[in-house]
């Protein structure tokens, strides 16, 4: 291919007939895919489409979902470039730390309010450190990687690498109580989503956050306090992670050291997968809300279909690749 051809290809790529058809369909692709998979599973297992099972899926998605809501905020504000852009790898460690610290103080006989507050505060402090580091100029990937190591260490120190069992009325209520058939965790997930969503799209925060993520210099020049937005995103992510930590503590009735590590990949996946539910292929809050449920649906359906558990992650991987491949019109040659 000559250089002339390459330039021509570059300039007219958007006028390509074929791509126009696909682009029209693409925005709905994620939704179609999700719908298709729901229908497919409802044929294969009679239990899948029962209310009990659907509420179970929502419950399973809540822990990953809440943490993903914070993560996607970081990705939106930092830009979705994976290496240079925003990402919070310490979120898994934060989830574990909140659970451990809360359980630690509860088991020492401190009151519920104090324990939960301390658990959340210590995590928020970590988030503040992340924010300061990133605003100062350290790459988010590395700042949060380093913070993750520090926080995991703190988790081990508090828990002494042991499981801490808790017996508390509040956590039992959090685990067992249901209203209208849905667990408390689902309401917390929904509530967190609604608060963030209304703040994001009801005020100018959302559009400014996208501006900072898209081109931070342009955003700065047009009068947005970019540093404030970046800093806040890490604090929000830490708060969301700590809520997730409380939920995981309630669910297991005990804190296991490094409990968050196993869900880190799911959290990252839900955040990046949100782009397939968006018309402009941007990470977005509503997309994350659906993605987390989507991921939980896959796990749930495979369990119902009696797949051995070690097949699940592979099938998840394939399905995600298929979805992402079909939507990726945003080519790597921009």
């Amino acid at each position, binding site marked *: 291919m000559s250089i002339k051809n390459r330039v021509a290809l570059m300039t007219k790529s958007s006028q390509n007939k074929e791509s126009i058809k696909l682009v029209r369909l693409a925005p709905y692709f994620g939704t179609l895919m999700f719908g298709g998979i729901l229908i497919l599973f409802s044929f294969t297992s009679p239990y899948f489409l029962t209310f009990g099972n659907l509420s179970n899926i929502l419950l399973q998605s809540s822990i990953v979902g809440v943490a993903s809501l914070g993560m996607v905020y970081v990705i939106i504000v930092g830009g979705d470039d994976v290496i240079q852009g925003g990402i919070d790898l310490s979120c898994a460690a934060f989830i574990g730390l909140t659970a451990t610290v809360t359980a630690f103080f509860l088991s020492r006989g401190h009151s519920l309010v104090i324990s939960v507050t301390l658990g959340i505060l210590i995590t928020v402090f970590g988030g503040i450190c992340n924010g300061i580091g990133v605003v100062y100029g350290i790459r988010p990937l590395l700042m949060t990687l*380093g913070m993750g190591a520090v926080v995991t260490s703190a988790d081990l120190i508090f828990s002494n690498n042991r499981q801490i069992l808790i017996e508390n009325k509040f956590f039992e209520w959090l685990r067992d109580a249901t209203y209208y058939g849905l667990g408390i965790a689902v309401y917390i997930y929904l509530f967190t989503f609604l608060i963030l969503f209304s703040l994001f799209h009801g005020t100018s925060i959302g559009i400014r956050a996208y501006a900072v993520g898209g081109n931070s210099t342009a955003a700065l020049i047009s009068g947005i306090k970019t540093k404030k937005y970046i800093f806040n995103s890490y604090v929000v992510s830490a708060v969301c992670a700590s809520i997730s930590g409380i939920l995981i503590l309630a669910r297991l009735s005990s804190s296991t050291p490094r409990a968050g590590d196993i869900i880190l990949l799911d959290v990252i996946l839900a955040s990046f997968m949100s782009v397939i539910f968006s018309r402009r292929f941007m990470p977005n809050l509503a997309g994350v809300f659906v993605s987390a449920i989507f991921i939980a649906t896959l796990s749930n359906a495979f369990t119902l279909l009696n797949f051995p558990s070690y097949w699940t992650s592979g099938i998840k991987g394939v399905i995600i690749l298929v979805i992402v491949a079909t939507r990726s019109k945003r080519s790597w040659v921009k």
Partner: protein
Amino acid sequence: MMKASFPKRSVIHEASLRFISVIGLFAILLFFSFSSEVFFTGNNLSVIATNCSLLLIVTSAMTLVIRSGGIDLSVGTAFDLGALVAISIIHNGGNTQNAIILGILSGVVIGLLNGFLIVYLKISPFLATLGTLYIGVSVQRILTHGGDPIYLKPSDTPSLFVSFGRGQFLGLSIPAWISLLLFALVFVILERLTFGREVTAFGMQPMAAFVGGISVKANLFRIYVLSSVICATAGVLLGARLTAYVPLSGDYYLLDAIGAVFIGTTLSNTGRPSPMGSLIGALIFTVLANGMNLLGISFYYQGLTRGLIIIVILGLSVRRNRSMSKLLVK
């Protein structure tokens, strides 16, 4: 309009900020050689070289990929596949040459998959390799019935295979020599060959590289295959060292490798990953782990120290990049 002004810093100040990772490494070396008597003995240094070897190999692979503007989260998958293939061949009575060669070549499968996903399906490298990682985890669980390690009986293991992992040559272990060899390979590719320059150009400015006539697709494909093959070599080495295959052991190196590469980027003016920098990053991690073990520090605190050191080194290097970027903006 503002006048262009150079930061008013002495040469020494500027250099000390640039070489902060090297200074950090020397400070760590100095600290441990004072606090532990055994640290600076030839024996311990060769242990460090051996411990560093696998991380250095994975880091070299990661340097290649990050230089091309992507990232490879499936290094652990290629690593484990290499170990799995080599160990199962020995386990089933195959000979050493086959085990090592097929183990190393098994990385090609992962590389081709990644290359296909990234180049032809145009999935972003992060998500594509994340998918490969998921699939790899599953495949390993399936093949090992949920995650049972495969152990080789000492009586059945060919001595040549064992010496591949544990042998000594001129005072260093074989894995250390192989890691140096692979490191040199990556160095030559990135710093001396046209291929390396093309990859660098693509990593920095994809559009410009494409318009400039670089065959982006072929180069990217080669990068991902090369990265996976290099990681599979590390897997074979670990298998030979342990004479066992432990599922999912490769993922342990992923975050360390990414950290090491980015510590290395502080050496460059433009924040570009370089093999030399990655070497220093990998050494910092290994020396820290070795020294802290010698001092008997509980592993609870090791993560804390490592995390803080990453943050401090990167934080200090930011001061310099800031002055550079100010220079560019004005």
